[in-house]
């Protein structure tokens, strides 16, 4: 076999010199316990993940529910402790940041949670919600705080600002609440925003507006953006590179148009096949999608995790050995044995 294009996992060889964030061989496993104290196994929510993100770059991590997206987000944010692997931010290893350095790291990353209804404490006014991060990070001058609140709200098109400041979250629509969440995430002028399904609880007609605001901010302020979603149809509009996640792994990555126009991994192909664009013609065709369900992360299949559902699985190989990362075309990488004999160019 001519394994010319193998990029070894976990060695960090792929990380870019200008990386704002670099994640290497990251594992986040959760203990499975019986009766609260006997460990019976692990849920491998994030299982050997490598990727990096340049300053000001927008990437999307796409995968179905339960594949480990939120676990990955929380590990990057420092809310989950990695079981193994490292995270570098601006070249600094952050897995071991403590005290002031930890505070600094938190101020550099804005977090937009999945559910705006759960993200905002109901008893705090919009003013207090936005003031809190500033107070925590030592902005002592009240006038400066006010100025920054007004700035963030204006960026989120929540004007006139005075109409909102004294309101409480429940008085706002879902879309407005999500703007508050985003305003809170950007008020410390972070270098990176992690947006975990930022619009999946919202209706179609307001989703686009929120995503456009987020993408606009990211460009204007040159912030890195990790857009996490299960909705592949939005990524072309709101990101530059896509990572496809399946059962704890990033199984494919490429620049957006490249990935959508020329998917390599059979799972990515299946996802694209499964998604409808509004068209009356859809009613007269069947979609060729594999059956089955995503595997349990506590007991994933041997070899490639997609092999039990894969229409082109190679017997004797895919169910036995974990595929390494191949690079069938430039900057287009995938964990799939189909590409074992394809050269890198």
């Amino acid at each position, binding site marked *: 076999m001519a394994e010319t294009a193998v990029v070894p996992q976990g060695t960090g060889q792929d990380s870019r010199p200008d990386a704002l964030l670099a994640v290497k061989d990251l594992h986040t496993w959760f203990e499975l316990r019986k009766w609260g104290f006997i460990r019976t196994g692990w849920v491998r929510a994030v299982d050997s993940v490598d990727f990096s993100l340049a300053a000001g770059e927008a990437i999307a991590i796409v995968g*179905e*529910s*339960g594949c480990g997206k939120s676990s990955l987000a929380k590990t990057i944010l420092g809310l989950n402790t990695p079981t193994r692997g490292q995270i570098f931010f601006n070249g600094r290893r952050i897995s071991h940041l403590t005290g002031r350095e930890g505070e600094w790291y938190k101020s550099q990353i804005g977090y937009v949670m999945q559910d705006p209804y759960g993200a905002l404490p109901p008893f705090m006014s919009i003013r207090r919600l936005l003031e809190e991060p500033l107070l925590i990070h030592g902005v002592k001058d009240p006038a400066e705080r006010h100025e920054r609140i007004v700035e963030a709200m204006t960026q989120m098109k929540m004007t006139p600002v005075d109409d909102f400041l004294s309101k409480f979250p429940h008085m706002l*629509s879902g*879309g407005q609440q999500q703007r508050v969440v985003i305003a809170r995430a950007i008020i410390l002028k972070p270098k990176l925003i992690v947006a975990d399904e930022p619009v999946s609880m919202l*209706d*179609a*007609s*307001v*989703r*686009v*507006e929120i995503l*456009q605001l987020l993408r606009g901010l990211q460009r204007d302020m040159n912030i890195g953006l990790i857009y996490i979603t*299960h*909705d*592949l*149809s*939005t990524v*072309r*509009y709101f990101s530059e590179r896509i990572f496809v996640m399946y059962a704890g792994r990033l199984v494919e990555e490429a620049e957006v148009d490249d990935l*959508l126009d020329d998917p390599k991994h059979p799972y990515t192909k*299946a*996802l*694209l*096949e*499964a*998604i*409808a*664009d*509004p*068209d*009356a013609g*859809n*009613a007269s065709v*069947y*979609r060729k*999608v*594999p*059956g*089955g*369900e*995503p595997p349990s992360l506590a007991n994933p299949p041997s070899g490639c995790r997609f092999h039990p*559902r894969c229409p082109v699985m190679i017997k004797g190989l895919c169910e036995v050995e974990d595929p390494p990362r191949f690079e069938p075309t430039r900057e287009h990488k995938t964990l799939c044995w189909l590409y074992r004999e394809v050269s890198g160019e």
Partner: protein
Amino acid sequence: MAHQSSGLTVEDLYLHFRTRRGVVQAVDGVNLTLDSGRTLVIVGESGCGKSSLSRAILRLLPRNVHTYKGSIRLGTTDVMTFNDELFRREVRWVRIAMVPQAAMNALNPVIRIQEQVAEPLLVHGSTQDLDEAIDQARRMLRMVGVPQDFAERYPFELSGGMRQRAAIAMALVASPDLVLLDEPTSALDLLTQANIMNVLKAVKQDLQSTFILITHDIATSSELADDAAVMYAGQIVELSTADQFFRDPLHPYSQKLMASVPTLREKKTLEFIPGQPPSLLDPPKGCRFADRCEARFARCSEEPPVFTVRGGRRVKCWLYESEATDG
């Protein structure tokens, strides 16, 4: 969408709820027609009254009903004239069945799948013979892709996708004239969603079923649609064939909604609708979409009637008054 003896005709259907804050006008004067053997999709954003409409059609009413009136005809029979006992015996499951929202979580946990699926037959239907009913249930389960050995299991032993298929089999088992599907795939993962849509397409073809598919997801709705209706703030604002609707939606709300749907295969300019739908406690007097509508004009402060235009399409918007073929 011409009238046909075995189709569905809904006229001036209202379902209002009493709440502490006032009367919620969840279904507020809905008119629909659907020929038998066709599928109507009803799309609309959350809270516009879609689930209430399906409950109104199947008379599954909560206690706090304030107003429930209108006519629901199956063929020539107006089932609204039936008393509750008659409706339960002769309509529900037998002539109209439903796969409710989150049906897969609503199955009885202590009854085997095949017995639950057989239940509509035993309680309402053709047979009193248990074996025969179970046979029929198994046939239906096989048709929707639930293998034999799964049929004998309990709901908790099955994945969400398999349970949802069982709920669909249960709705189909008594060969009803009409099946209501309320967001049948929204809680499932993407590949499972596509597989279940494939199942519904096959069922539709093989059994010539009449479906109403209710969803907030416009792209998915096109997978099954022969006809399409758009619901906004308790009312149907447009009813067209799917061909017409997906190519050229008429109502300004439908147009905006379509423009807000991201497409995978082509890159278009995405739009959004500023503002939010009105409260159903006290909806505006005129057109309910007017304050979010770029095309609004003086007339819109009055409630528009439903105009029939362009070969039978119906649209509740004053813009179409001049080309209307009725009234």
